[in-house]
C-alpha cells in the first residue's frame, strides 16, 4: 500500500518535472530557434504559402516536376507506406503499371533510364524529395510544357540540388516543391516587363 501511494505521487511529480524541465524548455527554444515558430516550416510563392517545406504534395500537371508515388496520396493528416513485400506479385504488377505510365508521360525515355524511386512508394507516403536523376529524366517534359529551354530548366534543377550533410554524409536530393516554386518564380520574372 505504501508503494502504491508513492507510485501515485511519483508519477504526478514526474509529470510536473518533465513539463517544466523539458517540454517548456523545448517550446521556448522553438520560439527563438525553430524555422517557423515550432510549426512545420513552409514554402511561399509571391507571399502566399504553397506548402510545407518538408512534406511532399501531389503534382500531376506537366509543367511541374513530379514526386514519388505515395501509398496515402500525400495526405499530411495521415502517413503510411505500401508495406508490400519484395516478392508480392500484386505489388510487382503495380510497379510495372507505374513504369508504363511514366514512359507514356515521358516518351523520350527508355526503361533503363527510369530511376526506381519514381515508381516505388516512400515509407511515409510524404517524401518531399526525389534524387537528382529523378529530376533529370523529367527536364525535357517540363521544359516543353512550359515553353522554356532545357538548359534553362536544367540550370534551375542544378541550383536546387541539396548536397549530403557537410558534403560527406547521406544522399543527394532535390526538394520537389522548392524546385517547382523556383521554376514558377523564374518564369514570372521572365513574363514581367
Amino acid at each position, binding site marked *: 500500500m505504501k508503494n502504491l501511494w508513492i507510485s501515485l505521487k511519483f508519477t504526478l511529480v514526474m509529470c510536473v518535472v518533465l513539463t517544466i524541465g523539458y517540454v517548456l524548455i*523545448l517550446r521556448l527554444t522553438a520560439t527563438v530557434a525553430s524555422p517557423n515558430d515550432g510549426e512545420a516550416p513552409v514554402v511561399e510563392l509571391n507571399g502566399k504559402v504553397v506548402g510545407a517545406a518538408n512534406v511532399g504534395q501531389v503534382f500531376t500537371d506537366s509543367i511541374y516536376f513530379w514526386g514519388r508515388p505515395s501509398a496515402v496520396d500525400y495526405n*499530411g493528416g495521415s502517413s503510411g507506406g505500401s508495406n508490400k513485400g519484395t516478392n508480392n506479385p500484386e505489388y510487382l504488377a503495380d510497379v510495372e503499371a507505374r513504369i508504363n505510365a511514366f514512359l507514356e508521360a515521358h516518351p523520350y525515355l527508355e526503361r533503363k533510364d527510369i530511376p526506381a524511386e519514381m515508381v516505388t512508394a516512400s515509407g511515409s507516403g510524404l517524401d518531399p524529395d526525389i534524387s537528382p536523376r529523378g529530376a533529370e529524366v523529367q527536364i525535357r517534359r517540363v521544359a516543353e510544357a512550359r515553353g522554356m529551354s532545357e538548359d534553362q530548366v536544367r540550370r534551375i534543377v542544378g541550383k536546387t540540388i541539396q548536397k549530403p550533410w557537410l558534403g560527406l554524409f547521406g544522399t543527394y536530393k532535390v526538394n520537389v516543391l522548392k524546385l517547382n516554386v523556383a521554376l514558377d518564380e523564374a518564369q514570372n520574372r521572365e513574363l514581367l516587363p
Partner: protein
Amino acid sequence: MNTEILGVILQWVALVALSYPLGLYIAKVYKGERTWSDFMAPVERWIYKLCGIHPKEDMNWKQFLKALLTVNVFWFVWGMILLVCQGWLPLNPDGNEGRSPDLAFNTTISFMVNCNLQHYSGESGLTYFTQLFVIMLFQFVTAACGMAALAGIMKALAAKTTKTIGNFWVFMTRSVTRILMPLSLLVGILLVINGTPMSFDGKQTLETLEGNEQVISQGPTAAIVPIKQLGTNGGGYFGTNSSHPLENPNAFTNILECWSILILPMAMVWAVGFYIRRKKLAAWIYGVMLFAFTVGVCVSVPQEMNGNPQIDNMGIAQDLGSMEGKEIRIGSGASAMWGMVTTVTSNGSVNSMHDSQTPLSGLLQMLNMQINCWFGGVGVGWMNYFAFLIIAVFISGLMVGRTPEFLGKKVEAREMKIATLVVLMHPFLILVGTGIAAAIAAIHPEIGWLNNPSFHGLSEMLYEYTSAAANNGSGFEGLADNTPFWNISTGIALIMGRYFPIVGQVAIAGLLASKKYIPESAGTLKTDTFTFSLMTFVVIIIVAALSFFPALALGPIADYLSF
C-alpha cells in the same frame, strides 16, 4: 567514396567512440559520486520529499521487485483511464476521440513495458495530452524502470556479500534527472533547430501549388522523438515514425536519431564494468555484442543498397537501392543501418518500412529481436545477456569439471533454473503465438490479416510476435493488427516478455549477492577471456538458432530463395 556508406560509417564510429565516456558517467551517477550534473541534487531532494521516498533506505531484492511491480500496475491504470477518456481532456485541438478498451489495453501495456507496438496512428489516435502524459511520460519512466533494475543488479554484483541491492525509487529518479532528461533536452533542441515541429496548435491547412487542399498534422513532436530513441521505446509521434519528414527532416537528424537509439544500451555495458570494477569483463561482453551487431550491418546494408532483384528484372535503374518504403533524404544504406540498430536494441522505431525490405534484412531484424541481447533495451538488454552468461558459466563449468562461479559467487541449481526459464520463455511466446495465428489464418483465409501472400505473410505474423515478446515494437506493418485478437494476444506476449525476465534476472542477482564470496583461485573459471566470450556467443547462437531456425526457414529464408 559513396556518401551513403560514409554516413553509415559515421554513425557506427560516433556510437563506439561516445559510449565509453558516457558509460563512465552512468556508473558514477548510480554510485552517487560527484559529477557535473550535481546541480540536479536539490530537484531530486524535492522529489524524494514530495513522494515520501527515503533515499538512504536500502531494499533487499524482494522489496525492490515489489516496488517495481507496484509502480507498473499503477501505470497500467493511469494509461487505461487517460486513453479511454482522452476525448474529454484538454490539449485536443484536432478533436480526436477516446480509445476502444481493447486498443487502450494494447497501447497501455505496450508503453508500460517500454515497447511501442502501435496498432494506431499518432495523428488521429492520440491527443496532445495523451501524447505527453501517457506516451512521453511512459517513455521516460519505463526506460528509467529498466535502468533502475540494472542498477540494482550492478549493486548486487559489486558487493562481496550483501542482502540489499539499493533503493529502487532513487535509481529511478536519478535515471530520469541525470541521464534521460539532459540527453533528451540536447537532442530535442537540435531537432527543433532542424525544423521538427514543437507547438500546440492543431493541423495546418494549406493550399498546394496545384491548388489542392492539404492538411498537415503537427504538434509537440520534438518532445517525443528524443526520448523515444534514448529510452529505447521507439513509439513514434506520427504513424510512420522516423520515416515521417517532420519527425526526421534531414540526413543530420537521421544520424542524430539513429545514434540516440543505441548510445545508452552501449554505454550501459561499460557502466556495469566500471560499477563492478571489472572493465575487462565489460570489454569482452561489449566486444561480443559489437561483433554480432556489426555482422548484421555488413549484411543488411549491401542487401538494401543492391536493390530488389525483382525490380532489376523489370529493366529500370535501381542505383539507389531498394527504395520501396524508404525515403530519399535517408537513403537505402542508412535505412538498413537503422533497421539493425532498432532491432538489436528493443527500440522499434523505424525510418523505413521493414515489411518492404529485402528478405535477408528482414531475417536479421527478426534474429536480432529473437536473440534480444546484442546491447538490447536500455538496462534490460544487459540483463538478458546476463541470463546467457549464467548458463554459459554453468555449461563451461561442467565441461571442464570446475565448480561454476561468476564474480566469486557459486552458481547453483536455483539460479540455473531461473536463467533457463527466462531464456526459454522467449521462444515459447514467439513460436506458440505465431503457430496459433498461422493456424487461424490458414483455416479462415477470409480473415484478411495479411497484406502479403505466401512466405512473406508468415513473416508478418512471426515478426509481430517476435517484436512483442522482445518488447521491440517495430512491425511488418502490412499486418492488419488492430483487431481484438492481435491487441490482446500481443498484449499478453508483451507483459510476459517484460516482467518474467526482469523478475528472474533481479532474483538471480539478489540470490548471488547473498552468497558467500569465494576469492579467485587457480580452480576458478575465468569469465573475462576470449574463450569464455566465444562460449557465451555459441550458447546464444545455439539457443536462438535451434529454437527459431525452422520458423525463419519458412518465412524470410524461403522468401529469399524465391527470387
